[in-house]
């Protein structure tokens, strides 16, 4: 309930600031030059929303896997007070070593390079 009320408070506050910026700003007529995207004084030459290939797309996929693994690491903090110490250290060591070996394997297979 309190978290919700604070969220609502922030919601209202950021709305207020947005409204203030819209009301206070000077108004004038739009003309063609003012509304074209900024490109150092020239007319825009190419469309900006065309598909193109991006380096490091594969890295975002690796990132996804890593992020899931990080989310799996976090419970070892809360498990520390609940389970047997030996079991705890075994599982967490095993997990992190798998992560490390996975990283080195990707490195070895040139997945982390800019270009091959």
């Amino acid at each position, binding site marked *: 309930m*309190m*978290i919700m*009320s*604070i*969220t609502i*408070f*922030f*919601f209202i*506050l*950021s*709305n207020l*600031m*947005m409204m*203030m*910026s*819209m009301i*206070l*700003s*000077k*108004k*004038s007529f*739009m003309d063609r030059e*003012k*509304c*074209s*995207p*900024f*490109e*150092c004084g020239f007319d*825009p030459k*190419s469309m*900006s*929303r065309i598909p193109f290939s*991006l380096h*490091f797309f594969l*890295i*975002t996929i690796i*990132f996804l896997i*890593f*992020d899931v693994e*990080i989310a799996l*690491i*976090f419970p070892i*903090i*809360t498990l*520390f*007070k609940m389970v047997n*110490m030996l079991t705890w*250290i075994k599982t*967490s*060591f095993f997990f*992190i*070593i798998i*992560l*490390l070996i996975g*990283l*080195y394997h990707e*490195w070895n297979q040139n997945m*982390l390079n*800019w270009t091959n």
Partner: protein
Amino acid sequence: MVIYIFDLLMILIGMIILILGVLIGVAFLTLLERKVLGYIQIRKGPNKVGFMGLLQPFSDAIKLFTKESTYPNFSNYFCIIFLLFLDLFYHYYFERLIPYMFNLICFNLRILFFLCLTSLGVYMVMIAGWSSNSNYALLGGLRSAPQTISYERSMALIFMSSILLIMCFDIYFFYLYQEMIWFMFIMIPLFLCFFSSLLAETNRTPFDFAEGESELVSGFNIEYSSGGFALIFLAEYSSILFMSMILVIMNMGGYNLSFFFYLKLSLISFLFIWVRGTLPRYRYDKLMYLAWKSYLPISLNYLLLFLGLKFYLF
């Protein structure tokens, strides 16, 4: 019921005071940045408005808010407006994490909350770059997306190894465990990694590929003018203040009711500015190599080390 409403009222008053403090802090942080950059380049910064330029940020804010705001053709107007709103909301939400023990909300999974919020930060710059229909803005947004996610992951692992030392998800416990020695001295390499990850996370200078001033004119916020630009600016600088606070709490003994906490906080924010005045921009592929080939292995290996330490100390 009466007590409950009283609590709610106190929390709201606390939040208002906190937000006002953040806004004023951001204003003077921008002034500090301009002054420090000025003295680094052997000139005086703003020194005319008010007493020695003390009122400069307020006159800047008034100027920015009263200028005309333009929206380029074929840009997604809704996206632009919604992004500004989201950005502001997100950065206010961050301030909730400041560990005050009274009149503000205090819950014990704050570090997880922080990590969730930082992973949201990718979308702001990306949406800002895409929605304003401009080539430069699109390039800036696209550059910042892989950068932010790479550094955020190594930052989460560094967080993980310092959480292993305190074994709790509450930010407040960092203070209890650092009474004798700062964590900075226990893990100096991780501290340095963490600081540069924060630089990359807030798009500051050696890693400011989202707004590379010499190649993309202003990067992702190029089409934002007047109030919109002021709001984006506000959000960025408040995130700098907040990140330096996280650094101080995690590594430099964060007892946030003492005077020296704020001294350390302003020292770290000064460090952000000093880095901007000194270092040239990095190269993009080197930046990604830095995240993937050095920070990630270092933080994973340190995690292993601290696991063993915890086991043998047990």
